[in-house]
């Protein structure tokens, strides 16, 4: 009986297109969209240089600017200030550098930099880089020996990219929305369509009915976390590093959201209202618990509340395992909070959903 029931419940979940959307398409869409953004990488800066490369100063400056990696350079001899401003206004360049040859022997050539970079940090970085190029060119042209020689290199350390941070967040979000919305929706559908009443007329004990429905949702969640983890990994989030512990925490957390789904189906009547209520619970939690941004960036006043939410702890444990290679057992504080949620929501679910009233 249990296998037939579980099989039937599984078919019902898998054949429900709306449930499949929440389970897979919705989070995969999020993963794909976020992958398109290149968070954290430095963009190149377009520079237009008005310099005559036949002069030593012009030639040396252009040569030195080629060495700055983030500058995308275009040389336009005879560029006037007005023309440079037009280039900036038309977004064809971020910075213009105008080199005016020396008016008399012994006089320095004049370089003028105009930038249209709105971001103050980007503007200072670009100014500093060009200033350093000019200084270097000055030294090279005048032959003054260097007192300090700088060697700069980039350390090859692993740093978490924003997308890697997002991976577990989106997987957790997908598990939560699927569990709550799909289960609350199917239970209320069963009730409204009379399926529950019909099942009640059979000798099937209520606990067997609920365990098969919950069991099917847990199995689908397990498949869901595996599929989403593979997609996230292929897109560049290192969720595989979390190992089996990552999956265990994800599925354990899903139990909480399934219980919440039962509570909503029990307390709210009417399918539209049930879906609305499920969204009202999951949407704020999705943002507050740090699916997309670290909870540390939330206002201090909100954080104690956020620390009470189950998704916060689930995501914390998933990220600790995937991104910081912590062990499953090291997640015991998060697992403790989640266990309190599992038990609390289970009791509330039992109290909320009356099988006998169906």
């Amino acid at each position, binding site marked *: 009986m249990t296998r037939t029931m579980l099989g*039937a419940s599984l078919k019902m979940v898998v054949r429900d297109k709306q449930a499949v959307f929440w389970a897979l398409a919705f989070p995969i869409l999020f993963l794909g969209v976020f992958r398109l953004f290149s968070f954290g990488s430095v963009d190149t800066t377009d520079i237009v240089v008005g310099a005559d490369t036949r002069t030593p100063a012009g030639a040396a400056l252009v040569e030195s600017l080629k060495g700055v990696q983030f500058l995308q350079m275009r040389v336009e001899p005879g560029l006037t200030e007005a023309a440079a401003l037009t280039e900036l206004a038309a977004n064809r360049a971020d910075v213009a550098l105008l080199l005016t040859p020396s008016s008399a022997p012994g006089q320095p050539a004049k370089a003028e930099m105009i930038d249209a970079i709105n971001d103050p940090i980007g503007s200072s970085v670009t100014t500093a880089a060009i200033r350093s190029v000019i200084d270097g060119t000055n030294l090279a042209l005048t032959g003054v020996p260097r007192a300090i020689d700088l060697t700069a290199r980039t350390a090859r350390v692993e740093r978490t990219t924003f997308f890697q941070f997002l991976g577990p967040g989106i997987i957790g979000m997908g598990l939560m929305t699927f569990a709550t919305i799909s289960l609350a929706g199917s239970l209320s559908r069963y009730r409204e369509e009379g399926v529950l009443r019909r099942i009640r007329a059979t000798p099937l004990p209520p606990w067997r009915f609920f365990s098969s429905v919950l069991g099917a949702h847990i199995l689908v969640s397990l498949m869901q976390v595996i599929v989403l983890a593979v997609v996230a990994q292929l897109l560049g989030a290192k969720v595989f590093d979390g190992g089996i512990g990552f999956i265990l925490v994800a599925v354990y957390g899903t139990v909480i959201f399934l219980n919440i789904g039962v509570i909503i189906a029990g307390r709210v009547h009417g399918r539209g209202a049930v879906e609305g209520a499920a969204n009202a619970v999951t949407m704020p939690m999705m943002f507050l618990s740090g699916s997309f941004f670290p909870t540390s960036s939330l206002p201090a006043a909100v954080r104690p509340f956020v620390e009470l939410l189950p998704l916060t702890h689930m995501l914390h444990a998933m990220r600790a395992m995937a991104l910081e290679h912590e062990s499953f057992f090291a997640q015991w504080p998060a697992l403790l909070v989640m266990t309190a949620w599992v038990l609390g929501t289970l009791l509330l679910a039992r109290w909320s959903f009356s099988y006998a009233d169906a």
Partner: protein
Amino acid sequence: MSGIARASTSDPVIAARGLIKRYGTLTALDGPSFEVASGEIFGILGPNGAGKTTLVEILEGLTPATEGTASVLGIEVTEHPQAVKARIGVQLQAASYHQYLTLREILQLFGSFYPKRADPMELLHRVRLEDRADSRMRTLSGGMKQRFSIVAALVNEPDLVFFDEPTAGLDPDARLDLWQIVREVRDAGATVVLTTHYMEEAEALCDRVAFMNAGQMVALDTPQGLIRSLNAPYRLTLTTAHPLPEADVRGIPGALEVVQERTADGFVVRMRAQTAPSVTTALTTLAGRAGTDIIDLAVEPGTLEDVFLSVTGRRLNG
């Protein structure tokens, strides 16, 4: 199921004693006592709110009675509702089935809830739905859905089947079709309890009919027995070319509610009669004596609707 007394075959399939169901101050069921014999098609008739569904839900083990006892297949239903559920079949009004499962899958699923189960394809064959075995519920017509809901009540090869308004909302053809299926279920050995508010359905199908009104069982007999219990069970209509002497018509023994009127067809006498043969003879003799031609004579038997009206003072449908 130790401790549950099993009935012998001669025992009634259902024995209800003083069943009362109260919801707060509302009494939904007010003490019916009755028995249903093995192999019967037992009809429960009554308007909406008469207590039919409450009565049936108590017998099915879905709702406990506030007072009274009911033994179903020899099992006390209040004490062992699960044991009763295992041996009965239930078709519920408005109960639907999982929309994402095929008919075959639904029957397999429901079969898995019982120790004894029938083959899904055989069941579908009984209601001519075998070619829809792999279709889902939403693709079926209303009549097909009702046929399926009947067969879904037979997954555990039950000894007793409850059909709750099985033909509600169906067209006449589909209704006849379903009546035949209900008869076949009985002929295969099950006892059938059927609720309906269609009088003709009860008359056509049921061996015995119980009338429910305001929570009480106000009459119980065979359809013919109930009709015979009417003071004047027949309705007579005589059309003649010339009028009959009205005092003579009223004087016919066993004639009641006599009305004579002139219509386009002629003079029409309508009446209710306690016995059809003697009143008909008396009427034709009267017409012969009056020297008028008889244009038409119609004798209609009484209906359950007439019985319901006479017992409760209200019409069942309307």
